[in-house]
């Protein structure tokens, strides 16, 4: 079966006065229906720009998608006109944003906003849309949905608002849901609830979910597969268990090493250095300046994506050597 969404060689640049920022560079991944794919990386590594590229919402100026394909079924979304994209957004691909405080319109009740999102793509009467909105509020486990329908956003807590955002995203039963740091702005306990909800709804709706996060704890909880991004590139891709059991890329290892674990007495290890400027990219691997395993070759040559086994991809010379040393098949 071909994947639900196929991203091939997506490249998005920002043309600023200081120079061209290579926000997303040659990114490829597949997303199946019924699957949660986590896109992980530090702030500024191109995760959100990837999401906006998939939605066709890259702010222009300064941004522009300069290459690649985004295949949903057999259509390349990057070739569609703005008008055609409007029919896809919210209908086939929906998105939940990071900040539930500002993502809702302050002057309308939450119910009216859900009704509006239903009416954007469905030819139904306002009464039917209202019924659907109450159903959706119930579906995202908001207690007393009829009562909450007429509340303004400022009356709801952060977690409730994020549930409303999820309800709006699900209004038209999308195939793909992109959640951009959906729990970052929430309390830890609420985070867990919202993530559980996302996980359950993913199963109920049979959606493919792209979860964007910098929090590996979130990833372990609900993701099936993980794509690790660094400086606009994919550096590693693997099923979630493999990422935690045997991370290959030094950056992934660094991310895992900097995660607090219960019972760990020693100081957390951080990754030294900062993410490089995406304007003046050095010829070699962009992680080489921060990498403990960097070799001379890493500073001159960009490592290609090597397929390891049948489900893992890594872009690192050191990791390739290690894996080859263990006698596994490496296919570059």
């Amino acid at each position, binding site marked *: 079966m071909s994947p639900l969404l196929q991203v091939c060689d997506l490249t998005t640049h920002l043309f600023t006065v200081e120079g061209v920022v290579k926000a997303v560079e040659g990114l490829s991944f597949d997303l199946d229906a019924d699957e949660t794919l986590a896109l992980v990386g530090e702030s500024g590594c191109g995760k959100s720009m990837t999401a906006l590229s998939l*939605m066709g*919402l890259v702010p222009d*100026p300064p941004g522009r998608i300069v290459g690649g394909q985004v295949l949903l079924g057999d259509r390349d979304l990057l070739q569609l006109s703005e*008008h055609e*994209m*409007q*029919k*896809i*957004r*919210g*209908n086939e691909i*929906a*998105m939940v*944003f990071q*900040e539930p405080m*500002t*993502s*809702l*319109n*302050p*002057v*309308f009740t939450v119910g009216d906003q859900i009704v*509006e*999102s239903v009416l*954007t*793509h469905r030819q139904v009467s306002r009464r039917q849309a209202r019924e659907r909105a109450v159903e959706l509020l119930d579906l995202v486990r908001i207690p007393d949905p009829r009562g909450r329908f007429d509340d*303004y956003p*400022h009356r709801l807590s952060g977690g409730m608002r994020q549930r409303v*955002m999820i309800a*709006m995203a699900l209004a038209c039963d999308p195939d793909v849901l992109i959640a951009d740091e959906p729990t970052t702005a929430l309390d830890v306990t609420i985070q867990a609830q919202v993530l559980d909800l996302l996980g359950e709804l993913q199963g109920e709706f049979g959606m493919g979910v792209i979860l964007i996060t910098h929090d590996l704890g979130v990833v372990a909880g609900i993701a099936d597969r993980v794509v690790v991004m660094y400086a606009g590139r994919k550096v590693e891709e693997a099923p979630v268990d493999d990422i935690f059991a045997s991370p290959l890329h030094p950056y992934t290892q660094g991310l895992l090493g900097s995660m607090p674990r219960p019972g760990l007495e020693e100081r957390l290890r951080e990754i030294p250095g900062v993410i490089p400027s995406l304007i003046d990219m050095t010829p070699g691997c962009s992680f080489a300046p921060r990498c403990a395993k960097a070799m001379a070759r890493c500073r001159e040559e960009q490592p290609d994506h090597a397929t390891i086994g049948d489900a893992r991809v890594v872009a690192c010379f050191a990791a390739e050597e290690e894996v080859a040393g263990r006698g596994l098949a490496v296919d570059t």
Partner: protein
Amino acid sequence: MANPVTEFWRRYRRNGAAVVGLAILCVVVAMALSAPVFFPTNPLRLVGPAELWPLTDARFPLGTDSLGRDIAAQLAHGAGTTLIIGLVASLVATTIGVGIGAAAGYYGGLVDDVLMRFTEIFQTIPNLIFLLALVAVLGPKIEHVVIGIGLISWTSVARLVRAEFMTLREREFVLASRAMGMSDLRIIVTQILPNAIPPVIVLASLIVAGAVLFESALAFLGLSDPNIASWGGLIGEGRLLIRTSWYVCALPGLAILLTVLALNLIGDGLNDVLNPMLKNR
């Protein structure tokens, strides 16, 4: 939350001057509505001796003008003319201003540049002169006066709406609306405009006051519609007699003063009500 209307009134009431303004406006509206009852005949008809001072003849409590027309009847009928001109002109100005300001603020870039240069052209033309020229060319009819006043008053609305849209378009709910698949027009009208409208309402009430003054100025110069009783027209009528029968100018002048004052006070009151309401949300 309480009923929005009672909530609105509770906040408005806190500004005493605004309540006085509303009371004065209510009197003017009552005058306009009752004019056909108390003065059923055409107020421009000659009914008595010329230049009759107020309080000298029970039939003409406010006296008569140089042609012997009843000043009280002209004031009462003029109230309606004045209010309608003010409201319609403000509506015209607000419609043009919101349309241009919204497009400029939402799209930015080249669209913004072109629309704002266009707005600046209108801002640089002296208002009254432009209005005089327009009415002189089109002819002194009430429709032309209203359109003319609308055309000179929309620039401030456009600039205000543009500024509001420039900040609002960066808000995340606009991006969320786009991610939902809404078209630009739909986002502008149904998502951003409701957020931008409170300050526009305040400005629109002040434009009504400005429009009343512009109409009076036109009428004073004899360029408003001569077939309709208006306050400005009465002042224009009386200006030749200002040294002898000054009441012909003074009475409608007082009416204009009070109406414009009332509209300004109401504008202040609306400002007090609408701005904190936006912040509390």
